[in-house]
């Protein structure tokens, strides 16, 4: 059996909560405010926040796994094969895949992160950068140089578990 309570006590408790919250937000904004005046004050995202996808061009082997697994088909990759002189004279000629184009259309991207997951060579990363909007929808297609720039903001990988 529950203890009898004054009818409407729950309503009054709820009203107290909102009123106290309001007073706290008005008089002690520094401690209680959960949002910021965005363009004037910028929020510091957590280091591993999933803001935008960054690319390490050196690691990419143009395997196209990310483009094929993308649910939105928003990754555009083009590449060609370059022949590299053998290390020793008489050795085998090495073939290296080189990236010509790696564009992600962020107007299409839904930030699922599947490309980051499937990349077998750790060429794609989540960057906490979030200010990359444009006034023109067509400009949301960002090229490999821009993606490479974001690599600098990627947090260092955590230590391996033992």
């Amino acid at each position: 059996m529950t203890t009898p309570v004054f009818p409407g006590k729950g309503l009054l408790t709820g009203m107290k909560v909102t009123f106290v919250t309001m007073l706290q937000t008005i008089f002690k904004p520094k401690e209680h405010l959960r949002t910021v005046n965005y363009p004037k004050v910028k929020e510091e995202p957590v280091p591993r926040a999933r803001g935008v996808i960054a690319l390490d061009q050196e690691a990419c082997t143009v395997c196209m796994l990310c483009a094929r697994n993308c649910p939105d088909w928003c990754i555009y990759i083009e590449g060609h094969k370059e022949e590299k002189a053998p290390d020793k004279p008489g050795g085998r000629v090495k073939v290296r895949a080189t990236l010509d184009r790696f564009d992600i259309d962020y107007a299409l991207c839904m930030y699922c992160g599947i490309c980051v997951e499937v990349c077998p060579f750790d060429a794609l990363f989540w960057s906490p950068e979030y200010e990359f909007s444009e006034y023109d929808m067509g400009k949301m297609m960002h090229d490999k140089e821009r993606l490479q720039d974001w690599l600098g903001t990627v947090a260092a990988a955590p230590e391996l578990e033992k």
Partner: protein
Amino acid sequence: MTDLLSNFWVLLVLKVLVVATLIPLAGMVIGFAEMKLSAKMQNRVGPYFAGGRWGWAQLIADGVKFFQKEDLVPAEADRAVFKFAPMLVFIGTVALFVVLPAGPDLVVQNLDVGIFYALAISSISTIGVLVAGWSSANKYSLMGGLRAAGQLIAYELPLVLSVVGVVVMAGTMSLNGIVEAQAGWLSETGWQGGLPFVIPQLLGFVIFMIAALAELSRIPFDMPIAESELVMGYVTEYSGFRFLFFFLAEFANMFSMSAIAATLFLGGYWAPFVPADMLNWAGPAILAAKVGALVFLMIWFRWTFPRFREDQLQSLAWKWLIPLSLLNIVLTGIFKVAF
């Protein structure tokens, strides 16, 4: 000057102008207050960008945005009725201001049946809502309109019945008369005159406020526009300027309902220790302060309570509020005759 003011037509134009500026102004002030207060109640900043300081121009920016939108009428809609519905809702709001006294002489028309007129005219908005829901040719709109009709019929009764107690105590239906019946002052022999009716009519006041919230379709009584169930209820198909009408009518109705509640129960333009000859000047400020307090209460309710279920809403009205308001009338009648 006094000759000019006593001319019927000059006075008429003046009154119309005052009411026409007051309604959007009150609606915008209340709308902005709601934005800011709701933000504070949720640890947010709220609007802050438009207009520089505090984001005071946020609602003006919103209004301009609504003007830019396309005026869309659904293909299946009953065009003429669809276009007329927002105005019908607004008519009730505007017509209510006719009897609101802001001072002994600051009233558009002091009707003998003032409160009767006010309650009658406020239910015109109900028809507007029903018409809007029906003419939209949309199932969500229709459900919203029907819910609104069911709710407004259920809560019209306790609203009117809770006012009967006040009318019995004041002995008049004129809103000016009701305010005068509440006016009291401190003299050498003690308190003279009346008391604000909220003290003897506390039950009536509580019932009136609950019913007024339901009449305004505000949370926790916002089933007609319940976003999570009915998209936006009867305003689903409205866009641009017509949506703005509904939006503004909601906040202006909050103002007028609070003003009526303040007049009936809190003493309207009268305040203790303000000399009677100053009431014509101080009256609007006093009334505004009381209305502000009641509007704050409504905003506070909205950001605290969840929505009622449809059957709970009906049982609250029919099983609790109406019997209680009838009881209130009986008790008031007995006290009026006995003392």
